[in-house]
């Protein structure tokens, strides 16, 4: 009950006209930032941080968290419309979102994505409101072995998804790992696979690969079929929102599961991107329509979006309670806190009640306001598909180039992006699956770092991976996921017998 009264006090702080205006501005800016690939939430918040120095801390954090919301919502838009993930965590959204758009169901996909984002984030905020201190303690239990187990679980829940040749899946995934290894090795500080080229030190950023493989690759593929994107004839009006909403309750189980995965990954802090992949993988396993995933299933949009936003939101919790950022955006926000003279950490909840509850209240309101803004714009977004291909295609190429450049401010990355585009075209035509490559690229170095940190701690003893109940159960779950196809068959047999 203490929480509730504090929360209502927080609402009172937030609900001033000035703060409401800031919320709206923040959300619109955030959506713009989210739509532009490369310019992610972290970038956006960092860029706009100076704007807020002249405001009171509570107003500033309201605006910044609304930018964050906006960016979270915005990331889905380009994934659905053009197969270009605006943010790393929207990659899994493209798997089913883009096919839906091609079938003329862009409005439906967008509505599902936005609504799921809202649901995921909403439950994460609820969790923050009532369980913050409890959950923060849980996050402390995560050391290197536990982190590795979580990454292993992500891989295992996603692996075996491809239908094509197992050799091609393997090659694609290993290529992802190899690309992830380029650059500096955290554990020994040695440069790997750079061959003396300083530009390779940066390694291959995940976003550059994704923009190329998905965005440019898709344009090349659609050129083969003539100058058009399919699906542009879709009927577009606000009714699509209502009709989609009617369908959504049927998938409550997927939503619930994805929310839990997301919240868990957010506080551990595995982050939004692994959460979205894991949730997609699990939904595919568990759903009765699992076999049809990838061909435009609405569940395939709900699962990753819900999880990504639940994770993105709960990632703010370790930041507030422990002072560790759960995501890059949270890291920048953390810098903001320091500038306003607030010290994140265990005492923030005690010493800065107004600020913390103002922030939590603004999470509720920002999330809701964001949903309203983006939903009213669904027809507008979907209408982009009506722009003739020969105008939108060069604009997309330009946006991809800008996106690739802004990741590291490096010209060479634009060349890499084109290279990845050509690679995406060939891989797609030859049935090399792209998802394992992307997953390996995004998690590969983190998984390796945590594995080797673990090995340092245990002095090379592999038994550490089942040394306590936490790491043991995650590892066990991972192995279960890996052998799920076999297991489910065995269970089926037993049931029949």
């Amino acid at each position, binding site marked *: 009950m203490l929480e509730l009264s504090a929360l209502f006090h927080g609402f009172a702080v937030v609900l001033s006209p000035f703060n409401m205006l800031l919320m709206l501005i923040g959300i619109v800016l955030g959506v713009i930032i989210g739509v532009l690939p490369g310019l992610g939430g972290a970038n956006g918040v*960092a860029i706009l941080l100076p704007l807020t120095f002249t405001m009171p801390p509570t107003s500033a954090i309201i605006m910044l968290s609304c930018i964050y919301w906006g960016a979270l919502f915005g990331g889905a838009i380009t994934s659905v419309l053009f197969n270009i993930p605006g943010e790393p965590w929207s990659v899994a959204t493209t798997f089913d979102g883009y096919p839906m758009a091609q079938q003329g169901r862009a409005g439906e996909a967008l509505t599902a994505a936005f609504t799921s984002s809202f649901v995921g984030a909403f439950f994460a905020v609820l969790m923050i409101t009532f369980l913050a201190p409890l959950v923060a303690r849980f996050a402390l239990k995560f050391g290197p072995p536990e982190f590795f187990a979580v990454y292993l679980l992500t891989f295992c829940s996603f692996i075996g998804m491809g239908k094509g040749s197992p050799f091609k899946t393997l090659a694609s995934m290993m290529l992802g790992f190899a690309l992830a290894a380029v*650059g500096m090795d955290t554990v020994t*500080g040695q440069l790997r696979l750079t061959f003396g080229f300083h530009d390779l030190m940066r390694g291959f950023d995940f976003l550059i690969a994704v923009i190329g493989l998905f965005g440019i690759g898709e344009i090349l593929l659609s050129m083969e079929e003539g100058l058009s994107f399919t699906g542009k004839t879709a009927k577009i009006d606000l009714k699509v929102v209502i009709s989609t909403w009617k369908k959504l309750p049927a998938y409550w189980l997927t939503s619930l599961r994805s929310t839990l995965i997301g919240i868990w990954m957010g506080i551990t802090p595995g982050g939004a991107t692994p959460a979205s992949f894991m949730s997609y993988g699990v939904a595919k396993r568990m759903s009765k329509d699992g076999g049809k995933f990838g061909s435009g299933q609405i569940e395939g949009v709900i699962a990753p979006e819900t999880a990504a936003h639940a994770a993105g939101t709960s990632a703010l919790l370790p930041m507030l309670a*422990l*002072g560790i950022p759960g995501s890059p955006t949270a890291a920048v926000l*953390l810098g903001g806190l320091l500038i306003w*003279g607030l010290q994140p950490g*265990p005492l923030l909840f005690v010493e800065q009640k107004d600020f913390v509850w103002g922030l939590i209240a603004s999470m509720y309101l920002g999330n809701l306001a964001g949903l309203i803004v983006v939903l009213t714009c669904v027809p507008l977004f979907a209408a982009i598909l009506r722009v003739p291909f020969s105008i939108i295609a060069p604009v997309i190429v330009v946006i991809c180039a800008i996106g690739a450049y802004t990741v590291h401010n490096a010209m060479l990355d634009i060349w890499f992006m084109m290279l990845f585009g050509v690679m995406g075209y060939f891989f797609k035509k030859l049935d090399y699956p792209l998802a394992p490559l992307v997953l390996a690229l995004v998690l590969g170095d983190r998984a390796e770092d945590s594995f080797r*940190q673990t090995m340092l*701690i245990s002095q090379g003893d592999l038994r550490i991976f089942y040394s306590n109940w936490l790491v043991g159960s995650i590892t066990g779950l991972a192995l279960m996921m890996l052998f799920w196809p076999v297991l489910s068959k065995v269970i089926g047999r037993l049931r029949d017998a």
Partner: protein
Amino acid sequence: MTQKTTATRAGNRSVLLRRICLGAGIAGAAIVGAAIVGAAPALAAGWEPTKPVEFIVPAGTGGGADQMARLLQGIITKNNLMKQPMIVVNKSAGAGAEGFLAIKEAKGDPNKIVITLSNLFTTPLATGVPFNWKDLTPVAMLALDQFVLWVNADTPYKTAKEYLDAAKAAGPNKFKMGGTGSKQEDQIITVAVEKAAGVKFIYVPFKGGGDVAVQLVGKHIDSSVNNPIEAVAQWRAGQLRALCVFDGERMPYKSKVTATMSWNDIPSCKEAGVGVDYLMLRGIFMPAGVTKEQVDFYVDLFKKVRETAEWKKFMEDGAFNATFMSGPEFTKWVEKTESTHKDLMREAGFLAKP
């Protein structure tokens, strides 16, 4: 690479062009009308930046250097200390080598500055990436960052001596020391402590200082050598205990930080019987080939920053050693520190294999 060098050369030329044609530039801007708010007026005394200043951080978002850079950006913007905006750009790849190489390549460009940490010295030595502080123009030392030996508050060790004796008694490779990065300042200190106390830790590298502090709270490691600012939140919450500060004398800040202790109450490692001292540079550098006027502008700018209340508070919160240096004095200091690092790293066996 050739492309890059031509790019830089052309860049220099265009900088020159820009300066010559500044008047024309303003006229052009007036014609175009939009876009230009506060383009550099060349009338004021001395030099001023002619376009947005790129502030390169050779470290990731959220780390100590990044926080300081963003704070500086905030202070400068808020107090209107510079007419052009300042843009923070993170170039962290290769333990900061990316950022330093960018500055090295921007020879003669006065609109770029970089904030340095110890990786200015350690990265070229450990990786063999060809850059050196001599490729840059030293501007000013903003502060020196302290290092503190931390343990979890639940452990029985009350002094550095107790802890190190326990580590010695346990034998080599039993106690785990966490730190940021590999073959960088944290590991250098660890090796120095090992030498001084005759112990052997397992050094576990993590990506950022915040991670290290949390790992220590979660008891996944036994001790750390975090900067004060990286661990202060956990210290105040009674989760960590500070054993000693790696400096010849105690930190000067006497106001209470935790319920019972101020920064000044932490003994220096020297008095605790561990003769290790190490301070990390937080300084500003510019590309080579800039004029004295241009350097003076930034020295002056950061002098103004030092006067602000926000900066003073930040210095105290993070228990920084707020020494300020510029000019030949600073250059000499950098020279000396580089040779210290070379010795330390040679002894530790961290130098890159040729």
